[in-house]
Each structure stands twice: as structure tokens, then as C-alpha cells.
């Protein structure tokens, strides 16, 4: 695999990576929607879910896409046409760029950059602009309120998200996600290295904070004030129809997948499974699948919480972020830093 990649020219490698990126976003988003949103939730609520299209309704997703493509692309009369139309693409671009830093194996990566997590957090924050554009461009009160609520929430929870990552970065001594995977694969727990050292064991506080903040960043219940369907219809997405609504929808679930993948890389060892040599060529094929398995596991948690918890009020939501998660994350950084130097 290494020799194969080395023989290809730059544009060939780039095309392979673009195709791999598209597959990674669409396949993951599709799997999440089918397995979690359609089926798992249906079983939780004692119903079957989609059953007609294909075996166990597995082709329901294609039917949905066909339905969305047929729908008329409506722009409200008073809307700001360009801003309204561009907003879903800003959100989706931000998601695609997030994917770039994820490593799938020793050689199966898009870019291997020292900035890693920092780059991911930076491009992830750009999606807020798309949400504000959608909220304002729709010229609707529901959309504007939804956009404002979303922004307030995303700003508040970006801080604990970033701070939770710092503990991992201190322990791994690098921000490169590939380096973080290798640090976990080659790590030892008090001299016992059979399963490496997945950072969830030492950074469990960081993991908890990251998952909670991630849930808020995705505006999933219990943090779904911005899209609260009973008061704001669907917030900033209210006026969207057809393909553009589908783009927001894909963006939402693809972001859930990509953020879970970042969490898997940071805390669960990424593409590594214990018992094999991390430099093994096998990981270039096996790695993406292992990562995908961990993503499915983490998104299961996300959707489980989404369909079990009631919605937070705005003040409860802000209090949780600023008075609980941020101090806890700071304490975690201090403890990690002290232990890193002392041990």
C-alpha cells in the first residue's frame, strides 16, 4: 500500500483522497441516519421503523433522497437570496474540512499536520457563520431566533470542547491526531502495555466534558433549544425545503459522525486495536473500519441521550457550560499538567 501510494502522482493521490472524503462523509451520515435515527429509535419506542423499501427498510434512505430531490427549492419572498442559498454550503464545507485531519491508518490519512486538533477546532467553528447566515437570510422570526439561540449555545460550548482536548494534548505531547493515536498505541499502563494506553482511562473527565460539549455543538437533545420544534418549528432551518434542507440534514449527521471520530481518536485510540503492531500495513485497510466501528459506538451514545433526555432551558444550558464544564475542564488541565511533570 505504501509503495502503491508513493508511485502515484500528486493529483492521483489527491483524487483518491477526495473520493475517500466523500465516501467517509456520506456513508457515515447515511449509516447513522438509518441505523440510529430510523431503526434504534424505533425499537426504543416499540415500533418497527421503515420496513417497506428493501429488506428491513434498508433502502429507505435512497427513497428519502429521491423525495427531497423532487421537492421545490423554495426561497421566501423577503429573504436575502444569496445569503439564504449559500448558508447550507458553508455548514457542509465546515464539516468536510473537519474530516481532513482524521487519520484512518499508518498511511491512510488526508493530511498529517502538527496542528491537528487545533485545525479541527478552527474549521469546526466556521459552521456557526453558516447557521447565522441561514437564520438571518430567511427573513423569518423563527429562523432568526433559532440562529441566535444556536450561536449563543455554540459559543458557550466551544470553550469546554477546546479545553477538554488540552488534557489529551498534554498527555500525548502532540496535537497531531496521528501522533495522538500512536501515543495511545505505544503507551503503557504502569509498565503493562498489552492494550496500549487509551486516554479514556486517564482523561475520563475530559472524555465526559467532550461528549457533553459535542452534544451541545450538534444541537442534539437535551441541547436542542435552537431547533426546538414545539416553539420554533426547526429554528434556522424552518424556511428551507428540498435539496437545501437535505444539505443541512446531511451536515448535521455528518458532523455527528466526524466529531465522534475525533472523540474516538482522542480518547479511544483511533484506528488502533490492541494486539497488533501499529506500523503494520494491515492497518491501512483495517484502520478505517476500526475507526468506523468506534464512531458507531460513540454516536450510539449521542443518539441514546438524544432520545431519552428532556430539553434544557436556556439558563440551565448556559449555567452548565460556564459554571460546571469550564471549571472542571480547567481543573482537569491543571491536574494533567502536574501529573505529567511529576510522573
Amino acid at each position: 500500500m505504501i509503495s502503491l501510494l508513493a508511485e502515484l502522482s500528486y493529483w492521483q493521490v489527491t483524487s483518491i483522497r477526495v473520493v475517500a472524503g466523500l465516501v467517509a462523509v456520506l456513508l457515515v451520515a447515511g449509516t447513522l441516519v438509518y441505523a440510529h435515527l430510523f431503526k434504534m429509535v424505533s425499537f426504543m419506542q416499540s415500533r418497527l421503523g421503515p420496513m417497506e423499501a428493501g429488506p428491513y427498510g434498508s433502502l429507505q434512505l435512497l427513497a428519502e433522497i429521491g423525495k427531497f430531490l423532487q421537492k421545490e427549492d423554495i426561497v421566501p419572498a423577503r429573504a436575502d437570496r444569496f445569503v439564504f442559498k449559500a448558508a447550507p454550503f458553508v455548514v457542509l464545507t465546515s464539516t468536510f474540512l473537519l474530516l481532513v485531519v482524521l487519520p484512518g491508518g499508518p498511511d491512510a490519512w488526508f493530511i498529517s499536520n502538527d496542528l491537528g486538533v487545533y485545525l479541527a477546532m478552527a474549521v469546526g467553528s466556521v459552521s456557526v457563520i453558516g447557521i447565522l447566515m441561514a437564520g438571518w437570510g430567511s427573513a423569518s422570526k423563527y429562523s432568526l431566533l433559532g440562529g441566535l439561540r444556536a450561536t449563543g449555545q455554540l459559543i458557550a460550548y466551544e470553550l469546554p470542547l477546546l479545553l477538554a482536548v488540552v488534557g489529551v494534548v498534554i498527555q500525548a505531547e502532540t496535537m497531531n491526531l496521528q501522533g495522538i493515536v500512536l501515543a495511545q498505541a505505544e503507551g503503557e499502563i504502569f509498565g503493562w502495555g498489552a492494550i496500549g494506553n487509551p486516554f479514556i482511562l486517564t482523561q475520563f473527565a475530559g472524555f465526559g466534558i467532550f461528549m457533553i460539549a459535542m452534544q451541545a455543538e450538534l444541537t442534539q437533545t437535551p441541547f436542542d433549544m435552537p431547533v426546538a420544534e414545539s416553539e420554533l418549528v426547526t429554528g434556522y432551518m424552518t424556511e428551507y425545503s428540498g435539496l437545501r434542507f437535505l444539505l443541512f440534514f446531511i451536515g448535521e449527521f455528518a458532523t455527528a459522525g466526524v466529531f465522534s471520530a475525533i472523540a474516538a481518536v482522542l480518547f479511544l485510540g483511533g484506528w488502533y486495536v490492541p494486539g497488533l503492531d501499529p506500523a503494520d500495513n494491515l492497518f491501512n485497510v483495517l484502520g478505517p473500519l476500526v475507526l468506523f466501528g468506534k464512531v458507531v459506538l460513540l454516536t450510539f451514545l449521542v443518539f441514546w441521550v438524544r432520545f431519552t433526555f428532556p430539553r434544557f432551558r436556556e439558563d440551565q444550558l448556559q449555567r452548565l457550560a460556564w459554571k460546571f464544564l469550564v471549571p472542571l475542564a480547567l481543573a482537569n488541565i491543571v491536574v494533567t499538567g502536574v501529573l505529567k511533570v511529576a510522573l
Partner: protein
Amino acid sequence: MTSVGLLGAAASGGDLFVAQNVFFGVIAVVMIVSAIRCVTTRNVVHAALWLVLVLAGAAAQFILLGSEFVAVTQVLVYIGAIIVLFLFGIMLTTASMGDDDSVGGEKRLMAGLVAVLLGVVMGIALIDSYSDTRVVIDEPQRFGAVSDAIFSQYIVAFEAVSVLLLAALIGAIVVARKE
């Protein structure tokens, strides 16, 4: 070397980065157009969105210069935080659709003067310090090197800025509190 232009460098056989120069030109044009639209549009939200393009262009130029850390920080701080706060503030207060005639107007002359003055001062300063030197960037500036420099050579400046920011933060809280 006096002529740093494309043809001059190519003729002298210097280490010319063609792609970098072409993309510098493309991004610079986008930045200039966006900057002009940013100050001429009468819609406040549009102005903020044009500013996003200018700042993203600046980040792209930093990447062309090989300073990836500065580029990413530009995106995180300016686009991800400051512009978002701008838009948030605008939408909480006015957020009118369409053009707002109270924007711009009588302050244009003064703003133009300040802009020309700033351009002249910066132009003179740049030409004065870099007139004939050609800055060669052999390799990108690694993030590790940046953090090493910040926490060894520039530690005093870094700490001073940190304390200043903390003071500003506390000051903002004190000002915002009513009682």
C-alpha cells in the same frame, strides 16, 4: 535583486514558486474586492460577511507564507469568534433586511482619509525596511518551533500580554455589573 516581479525572478533563474505567486495574486484580488464591498455596501450583515472573505483571504496568504499556526489562529479567532460576535450583535439589535440608508453617508470622507493615511504610512514602512531584500521561505514554519519561541525567547512578552488580557476581562465584568 531589484525586480521581484514574476518575469524578473524567472529570468534570473531564482527559486521561483509559480503556484504560490499565482495564488497570491488570485487571493489578493478576492481580498481587495471583498474589502471594497465591505465598506461600500449599505447592509450591515453583508458588510460582516464580506469581512469574512477578507479574513479568510488573509489566512490563506499566511498558509502560502508557510505560517500554518498563524493561519489557523486567524480562522479560529477572527472568523470563528470575532465575526460571529459581530453578526450576533447585529442580529440582536438591528438585523434589518435590505439596505440601511443610515449606514455610511457623511463619515465616508473621514474614513477615506484615514484609509489613505494608513496605506501611505504602511507602504513607506514596508518599502523602507524591505526595499531590496527578498525574503526566501525555504520550509514552512513548524508549530513546534513557534511554541518553543513563545515559551523561551518571548516568555516575558507572552506573560505580559496574558496579564493584560486578564485585566481587560475582569475590567469588562466590572463595567458590565450594575450594582
